[in-house]
């Protein structure tokens, strides 16, 4: 194929200019209204009284505790889901077994269930009045209104991200490379690490980034199981809510801005990945 010689060279399948302008304009207007404007508002509100108060707001011990808890939660939930996602995708894409459609449906469950329900599930199971409530108290194990509950709820909600990223990728790649490896005497584990995993590493990284962004931002499910104990069980999104409810707008928006920054960094990383590896979505090693 040769490059278009004229700057405005049009393809035969292009729509008329006015139609393109209209559609693109609509999309941009919509994005601006519901995405960019609020995002800008977050930063504007945070910096309304200058950089000093904003920095002070995220330097309080409570804010620090929330930041730390958020990072700890993500640091546990993301590797867990990466491991689970790899296993699930490998099982689903490369093997046939009874109940496979059920497993695929189950993986999607967290996407279709309201986060509040996701939180309530854990309260019902591990809470004081829950199934294991008394036994947990007897052994002095705290899950609900403590870090384990927050981690569990986060894992539940972010469960599908990595698996969903990897399943289509692995399915598309088929099993012939694995068959080739096995026919040459490679064990199952060796084949997985040397053949399957390298083929999906970019897809895995992409899934990890998305999962991480969601894990840090999760509000609903975590809100139910956290108990909102300042400095102890408040993650960043919960801390934002408390500050906001106390009419401490500058602090609330300062923490919110920090949360946004974390998300933006994640998305920028993702974009850099896509530019560096144009076929990230296809996951090929080249």
């Amino acid at each position, binding site marked *: 194929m040769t490059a278009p010689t004229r700057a405005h060279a049009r393809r035969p399948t292009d729509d008329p200019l006015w139609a393109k302008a209209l559609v693109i304009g609509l999309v941009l207007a919509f994005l601006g209204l519901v995405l960019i404007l609020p995002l800008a508002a977050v930063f504007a509100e945070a910096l309304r009284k200058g950089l000093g108060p904003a920095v002070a707001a995220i330097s309080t011990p409570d804010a620090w505790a929330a930041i730390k808890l958020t990072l700890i939660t993500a640091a546990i939930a993301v590797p867990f889901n990466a491991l689970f996602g790899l296993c699930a995708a490998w099982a689903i894409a490369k093997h046939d077994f009874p109940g496979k459609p059920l497993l695929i449906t189950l993986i999607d469950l967290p996407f279709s269930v309201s986060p509040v329900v996701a939180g309530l599930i854990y309260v019902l199971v591990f809470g004081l009045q829950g199934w294991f409530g008394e036994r947990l108290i007897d052994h002095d194990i705290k899950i609900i209104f403590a870090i384990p509950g927050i981690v569990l709820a986060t894992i539940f909600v972010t469960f599908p991200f990595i698996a969903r990223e990897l399943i289509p990728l692995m399915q598309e790649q088929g099993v012939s490379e694995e*068959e080739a490896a096995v026919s040459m005497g*490679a064990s199952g584990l060796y084949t997985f690490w*040397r053949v399957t995993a390298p083929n999906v590493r970019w897809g895995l990284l992409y899934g990890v980034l998305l999962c991480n962004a969601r894990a840090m931002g999760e509000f609903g499910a975590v809100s139910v199981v956290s108990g909102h104990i300042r400095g102890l069980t408040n993650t960043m999104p919960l801390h934002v809510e408390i500050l906001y409810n106390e009419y401490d707008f500058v602090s609330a928006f300062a923490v919110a801005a920090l949360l946004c920054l974390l998300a933006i960094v994640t998305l920028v990383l993702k974009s850099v990945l896509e530019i560096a590896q144009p076929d990230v979505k296809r996951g090929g090693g080249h």
Partner: protein
Amino acid sequence: MTISIRSVEKKFGRYPALNHVDLEIADGELVALLGPSGSGKTTLLRTIAGLEFPDAGQVLFEGQDVTFASAAARRVGFVFQQYALFKHMTVARNIAFGLDVRKGKDKPPKAEIARRVDELLKLVELDGLGKRYPSQLSGGQRQRVALSRALAVQPSVLLLDEPFGALDATVRKSLRKELRRVHDATGVTTIFVTHDQEEALGLADRVAILNAGRIEQIGTPDEVHDNPATPFVCGFVGEANRFEGTVSGGRFTSGAVSFDANGVKDGAAVGFVRPHDLAPDDGGFEVRVDRVHVQGALASVSASTADGRHVEITASRAEAARFTGTIKLAARKSHVYPA
């Protein structure tokens, strides 16, 4: 390595992919499994490889039962249609894979592996490309790498699944010669699957023709072409004019068309005549020439009988001049099977 397939059966769901297949392959043979898609040829190859286990029957290597042995235990070299090269490994690492996975004293020293890789790259005429990645190679080169990777483990049998299916015609031709050369150089028993009869007949010592999960005939290329055992083989291997008609008193008749059917019992029958077995003959049946198409040294003639039966004839270019207007044709040779 001799290979025996004994009444092997395999079903996918309710669909029988292999139906009582028997096949004996001699040591050092180059055998083609030829058939249309869905005939079970790839399933048979994968069963021999140990990538598929049969529902019933036996696979023997050198008289040893390997029906349920793993592919690795059988020491097969398998070449996949879409190459199945490891994308993130260099060509050299790909070829060395089968040696790299070995453990303990079975694993050759590094220098030995490197030497073997170089040797194999030379064998398939890819010397110096060891450091490339598969994506930096052409389709034909990738398939050569796949071939040398399969040979690296010094397999007892080399199995190839539609090895040239994804390549263009020129590359196919040269790789075909290449496979024959590699086979003759290594002497390894080789089985390949193809749907291309030209490939099967031009390359293999013997051809097994599969249809609907059964082997219809196995024989040398000449045997299956000149003496097809079944109507399917006759229609599938080589060109043939097919007529449905009846046999009476050793003569096959289908409307205006009629030719010899010695030894076939009277009744409904299906008859085949190869285009090059038809020639002008005053004692034959009458056709009207519709079109003469000259291709190099040969001319292919389309003709039709008065009752609308279509006939294809191949003649030499010199003979082409005789095919004008209405002429009479007779079959030098024909194949007639009771219907």
